[in-house]
């Protein structure tokens, strides 16, 4: 199996620094210009074939720390996980030995149909059991812990009984998984549902948060003064989300922080500029190196 061959010299853990979500259109620029970026994250589903994308990622992997981010495992499926998909994720995880592996608190598969979006869960005890079972199965199969990300959402179910922040904390506590705190998603969902974004952040268990995501979103006008925020990853991070990011760092300390941009992907320079903004904020929260003297 070609896919089981591990990469060569591979930088290991993801540093508490700013990284970029790597998309195909920037592979060549990264390989040719070796930009000064601390780490990259890719969508696992984009590398599930062979050929050029995989080969280029191998090359990039030799010089950069890498995180694998999934959108297709459907951790919230009551039917359980798609064994074939989990196997593809396992093989890529073995091959690339990523510093982090993450997925979403959402579902996208029912009765064998893939619904191609991160769909919202009713936040109930039943759903909590389902998510925890699925996260445990992934962690057993991959033989490593994963991070679970809070999604952006546009609707809530009437029978939800658990606030999303408590749900996420419970998944982490019960399965030992970490939390990927998407600050933009908190802002979007809080705005769409009338939650208090600061309270959401403060309620997450600091020790469990292993990574932060930042992205742009858009404000859609539905007429008659009604608006909804759409997490489309197609623009720069807005000032209010940068402010919330500072709050997150104050709670959690400096953490690996990813800039995501998926719609109308701009030149790599635009992304490195965004990453530098995050880097400048991270600097203020990095614990100064203390050189203890042996007494």
């Amino acid at each position, binding site marked *: 199996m070609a896919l089981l061959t591990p990469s060569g010299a591979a930088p290991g853990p993801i540093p508490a620094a700013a990284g970029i979500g790597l998309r195909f259109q920037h592979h060549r620029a990264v390989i040719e210009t070796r930009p000064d970026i601390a780490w990259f994250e890719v969508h696992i*589903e984009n590398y599930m074939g062979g050929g050029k994308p995989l080969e280029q990622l191998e090359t990039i992997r030799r010089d950069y720390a890498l995180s694998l981010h999934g959108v297709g495992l459907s951790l919230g499926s009551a039917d359980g996980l798609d064994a074939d998909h989990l196997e593809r994720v396992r093989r890529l995880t073995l091959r690339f030995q990523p510093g982090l592996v993450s997925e979403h608190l959402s579902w996208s598969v029912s009765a*064998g149909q893939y619904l191609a*979006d991160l769909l919202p869960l009713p936040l109930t005890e039943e759903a909590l059991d389902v998510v925890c079972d699925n996260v445990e199965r992934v962690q057993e199969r991959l033989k490593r812990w994963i991070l679970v990300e809070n999604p952006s959402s546009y*609707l809530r179910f009437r029978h939800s009984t658990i606030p999303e922040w408590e749900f996420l904390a419970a998944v982490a506590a019960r399965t030992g998984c970490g939390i990927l705190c998407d600050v933009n998603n908190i802002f979007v969902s809080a705005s769409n549902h009338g939650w208090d974004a600061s309270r959401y952040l403060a309620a997450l268990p600091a020790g469990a948060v292993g990574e932060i995501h930042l992205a742009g979103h858009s404000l859609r006008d539905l007429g008659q003064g009604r608006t909804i925020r*759409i997490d489309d990853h197609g623009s720069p991070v807005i000032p209010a989300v940068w402010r919330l990011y500072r709050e997150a760092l104050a709670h959690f300390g400096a953490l690996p922080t990813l800039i995501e941009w998926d719609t109308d992907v701009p030149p790599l320079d635009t992304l490195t500029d965004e990453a530098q903004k995050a880097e400048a904020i991270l600097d203020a929260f990095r614990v100064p190196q203390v050189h203890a003297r042996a007494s």
Partner: protein
Amino acid sequence: MPALRELQRRFARGMWSPSESGTIEAWIEGDAIAEADRLSIYRNTMTGVITNAMRLTYPVVERLVGAKFFAGAVGIFMAANLPRSAYLNAYGADFAAFLAGFTPAASLPYLPDVAALEWAVAGAAAADDAPALDARDLAGFDPIALEALRLIPHPSLRLVRLTTPADTIWRILTAGDEAELAGITLATEPFTVILHRRTEGIALRRLSELECAVTEPILQGRPLGEALMAGGGIDAVALLAEHLASGRFTRTA
């Protein structure tokens, strides 16, 4: 209160068919923004993601019919061919067959062939990697052992049977020179294209009927001696040498 499995079944139905979203809407918290509008945000993302995946697999079909027509055709196709996996590279296998029966596209008789070719190209591009077998690997075999040998095609190797010059259309549009399309003669005898992935990209070549008669048994794992006899008058050994030099076969691990 619905069980999660029931909720997900109903939600899926409502995603594909807005007229069936009543049940799920009753479970959604509503306010100034109607439940149906909230649901349609997810529906739009879903159809957008799937359409985009199809666009990546069928770029030449899209150029031939235009973005709007393409999105419309894909919308009808996806409702009848729901994705079964989050690995969307593997989605859209039946698009050529769908286009063959799609009346609004009937004025473009070559469209199903172009789709069939693009499906093969996309499959080749995403196929697993494997080391190529070359002529030197066969150097140690004596003639009798060589005749009994069965070769393994490279995972990216595909044969596509075409009845229109879809390969020429594909080449022209992939190179971006649409003006050349005007010079194409559509009438042609059915023929076969062999394609596979090389370092520099996807390599396509037409096979004559006799070349096909030699190549097909090799691909089916028949002994080389038997396959090489099937070519009638052609230089089957030279064809085999070309197959090997192009990297169309792979070494066993």
